[in-house]
């Protein structure tokens, strides 16, 4: 049984907290976990200090999910006009059915399969005799019923084990139909060490089967793709609103509120703006090599971060008209943000928060907490890699283990006809000289205070211990962690799918977030944990009705 201790945060040195987290483990587990807990020095190391993207220890209650969840759930889940067919027993498709709060707007008559759940519901005989025939038949039935532009097939654990060739089945069906693109993802749950492997697999297949299919040039100026934005709680809608106001044309979003056609023409954009570094940097790299589209890291979580990202995009295009519009938009949007902050920060200032979420989100949301003048005292990722913590400069020095090596790396070359440098070498150099940073991500550690704790793949035991010792005012993670933290009397905000509400991106989103955090950390409910008689258990000798 755990109760939040009364010892104040300042009394705990980070090294003490770290050793308290480790003391109960068997020695082998303790040694492994010690490498995944870092007392931050905020240095720009060339070699990673923290170990990440390694196996979770069996039996240690992890926050992590599987490769299938990363591929089908995260990357392909928000694609509305693709029939996402899961080949496997029923559960995998069922659990990924509408549970991530991805919003979409297909209009009154548009194609939208996101509310549906498709599965081959493999039975014992399919496991024994193979499921390829059933898969082909299921694809046929989906085609006959809906005539979609595209059907995507997702492998679950047993599919890889029994050796169903889902790629050949898909290819054959695609050829048979002629007007429906069918392709498959080998995203069996046992691959890799977390959802992250699934992101990579999804990136590869989207790049291989969708990107570059439509060369038609879309109208508009300042064309970008927004990569790694999943429109959870309507984040993407708010970012789209801001882009429109600035005159920036978003050719495609990977993959919030996306359509098949957007992916197909994404190679016609002139800049890739990467939100979630972890889940989508592979596509950005591959598009640069094949089509010559540079990429920059952006972040639309936080009002200041949004302004900064807009300026970064404007600076890339370098045209005065855009730079002026962006400044005008920021000037228009910020007063409301500042008014909200002025009202709310007196109630949030100096409150403490912990965040353990995603592969970029813990970093992004720190911006919002900074704006609220809250202190992030510990943070980490569920499925981040070393570069997400300590910056891309550590990439050459990350040791690949067997689990990562098993995930396909596509060999990409410049496309003979479609490769087109967006800027001349001279222009790129000039931008870089002026301090413009392409393909750069400094990671979470650089933005965390010295002496804070950065913890990779935090587990239930450590989470509970951290809350006990450091007693934060707010804890952020996912649905599985939510209620054990709240039982301790500490409010918990889900940052995967937000529980409810949103958008939290952009300017309006920032205001929504400030209000939400104000509500959470200042709710009266946290003062009701004990009944009056529990607070004052001593009975007086007598009680008079006077």
């Amino acid at each position, binding site marked *: 049984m755990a109760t939040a201790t009364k010892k104040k945060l300042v009394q705990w040195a980070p090294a003490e907290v770290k050793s308290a987290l480790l003391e109960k483990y068997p020695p082998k587990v303790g040694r492994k976990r010690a490498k995944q807990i870092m007392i931050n020095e905020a240095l720009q190391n060339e070699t990673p200090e923290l170990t990440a993207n390694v196996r979770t220890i069996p*039996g240690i209650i992890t926050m992590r999910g599987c490769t299938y969840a990363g591929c089908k759930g995260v990357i392909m889940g928000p694609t509305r006009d693709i029939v996402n067919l899961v080949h496997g027993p029923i559960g995998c498709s069922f659990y990924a059915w509408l549970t991530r709060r991805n919003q979409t707007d297909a209009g009154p008559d548009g194609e939208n399969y996101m509310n549906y759940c498709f599965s081959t519901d493999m039975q014992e005989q399919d496991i024994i005799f193979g499921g390829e025939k059933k898969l082909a038949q299921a694809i046929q039935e989906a085609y006959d019923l809906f005539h979609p532009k595209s059907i995507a097939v997702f492998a679950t*654990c047993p599919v890889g084990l029994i050796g169903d060739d889902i790629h050949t089945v898909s290819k054959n069906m695609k050829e048979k139909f002629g007007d429906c693109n069918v392709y498959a993802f080998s995203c069996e749950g046992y691959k890799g060490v977390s959802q992250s492997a699934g992101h990579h697999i999804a990136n590869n297949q989207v790049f291989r089967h969708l990107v570059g299919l439509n060369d038609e040039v879309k109208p508009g100026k300042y064309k970008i793709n927004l990569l790694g934005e999943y429109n959870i709680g309507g984040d993407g809608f708010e970012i789209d609103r801001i882009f429109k106001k600035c005159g920036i044309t978003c050719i495609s979003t990977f993959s919030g509120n996306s359509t098949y056609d957007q992916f197909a023409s994404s190679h016609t954009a002139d800049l890739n703006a990467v939100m979630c570094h972890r889940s989508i940097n592979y596509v950005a790299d591959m598009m640069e090599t094949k089509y010559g589209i540079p990429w920059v890291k952006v972040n639309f979580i936080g009002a200041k971060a949004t302004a900064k990202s807009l300026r970064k995009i404007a600076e890339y295009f370098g045209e005065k008209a855009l730079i002026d519009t962006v400044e005008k938009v920021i000037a228009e949007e910020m007063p409301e943000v500042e008014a909200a902050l002025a009202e709310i920060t007196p109630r949030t200032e100096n409150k403490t928060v912990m965040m353990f979420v995603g592969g970029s989100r813990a970093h992004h949301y720190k911006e919002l907490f900074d704006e609220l003048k809250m202190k992030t005292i510990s943070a980490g990722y569920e499925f981040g890699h070393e570069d997400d913590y300590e910056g891309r400069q550590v990439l050459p020095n990350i040791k690949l283990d067997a*689990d990562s090596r098993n995930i396909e790396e596509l060999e990409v070359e410049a496309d003979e006809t479609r490769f087109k440098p967006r800027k001349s070498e001279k222009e790129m150099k000039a931008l870089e000289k002026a301090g413009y940073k392409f393909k750069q991500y400094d990671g979470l550690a650089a933005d965390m205070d010295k002496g804070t704790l950065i913890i990779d793949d935090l587990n239930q035991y450590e989470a509970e211990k951290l809350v006990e010792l450091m007693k934060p005012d707010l804890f952020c993670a996912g649905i599985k962690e939510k209620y054990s933290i709240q039982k301790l009397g500490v409010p918990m905000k889900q940052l995967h799918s937000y529980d409810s509400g949103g958008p939290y991106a952009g300017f309006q989103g920032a205001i929504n977030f400030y209000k939400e955090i104000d509500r959470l950390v200042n709710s009266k409910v946290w003062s009701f944990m004990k009944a009056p008689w529990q607070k004052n258990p001593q009975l007086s000798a007598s009680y008079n009705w006077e």
Partner: protein
Amino acid sequence: MLLRHTPTEITERTALTINPAKTCQPIGAMYAALGIHGCLPHSHGSQGCCAYHRSALTRHYKEPVSASTSSFTEGASVFGGQANMLQAINNIFTVYNPVVIAIHTTCLSETIGDDLPQIKKKAAAEGKVPEGRYLISASTPSYAGSHVTGFSNMVKAMAGMAEPTGKKNGKVNIIPGWVEPADMEEIKRITQMIGVKTILFPDTSGVLNGPLSGEYKMFPDGGTTVAELQSTGDSKGTLALGEWCSADAARELDKKHKVPCRVLDMPFGLMATDRFIDALRTIAGVSIPDEIVNERGQLVDMISDMHQYLYGKKVALVGDPDQLIAMTEFLVSMDMKPIHIVTGTPGKKFEKRIKEITKDMGCEVNVKAQGDMFLLHQWIKNEPVDLIIGNTYCKYIARDEDIPYVRWGFPILDRQGHQYFPTVGYKGGLRLLEKILGVLLDRKDRDDSESKFELVL
């Protein structure tokens, strides 16, 4: 329209399931295991299974759901998961120290053929199971049956803990099936009122409907204790509620330890509750107290008071076999017409039972086991209904077709109350009826013209 691509015309599908009316076995095993006091469910497979099951149960209960996983990687999938499982057992007892680890398999570990009983033996032989601590296991391949089957398999594993002493304990085992914590609490209240000593297993009350008090107990106070489970072999009999959820465990106790069993329907609605109470009476040899008779009378009273709003109303149902059988009977007993009934769980017996219950209704009934909600929606498009009863996914159909809808079953992700208020027994029947009448009369109030709008209904 949310489900805008669902056509009215029904075509045969042999391979494609759309909008399932079931999920997979392991989540049922996990839910059942949470009904053992001090138990940590363990998923022997890749991480995602455990993460998904915990998330689904957490969203349904808004409570912490702890469970661990063997975290299979590609290597474990090739060489077998024994090493992962043994490591997990050691870590779990060291870090969390549960009384029981209840292991269930997944399609992954089943496909590669991991042998759990053998792994358990090895763990015991290597001294990885401390004194007074237990490992139980159930085989729950996701490619057979449904979440209901997985629940049943884990309950059967719980019955496997029985250790008869030869001395009868004077108790009746009650296996409640996959019902809510509130329902389990209600069954205990009823048996206490009647004066029957029972062992209820599993029992998730006090586990998945806990208080918020500033304390977190990884293993809450509720749940059937190991001592009780061991004692089930000394009970004078077993009442299994629900053929699909509970019968296998009861028959296991009968076969192995000669504890006689009766399989009843789940006590939802008037008649199924009547049979449950009557069975308790005869087994325990007691007479039924007036309070219970009174509760029954209140339910009959509400049915009679509001019969005009229920009579002839057509209903579409989706859920699990045991629940649907009792619910169909309840609706028929109130002269309502359940005309479309789907479960995703396989079993021709289900269709037969429903046909029997509805045979005098005087209209065609669509019923399908191993069906899906896409088919249910198509049936509704072809023959509209006045009411839908089912889990949260029904809200997409209810909104598109503008049909009154009562949430009942698993999962319920968007409303509260199922953890706290029972729907079993007579009191539960009153609550079901209140919910049904609520949506039907709200609809009437919404749709009646101003001249027809009435104060008193």
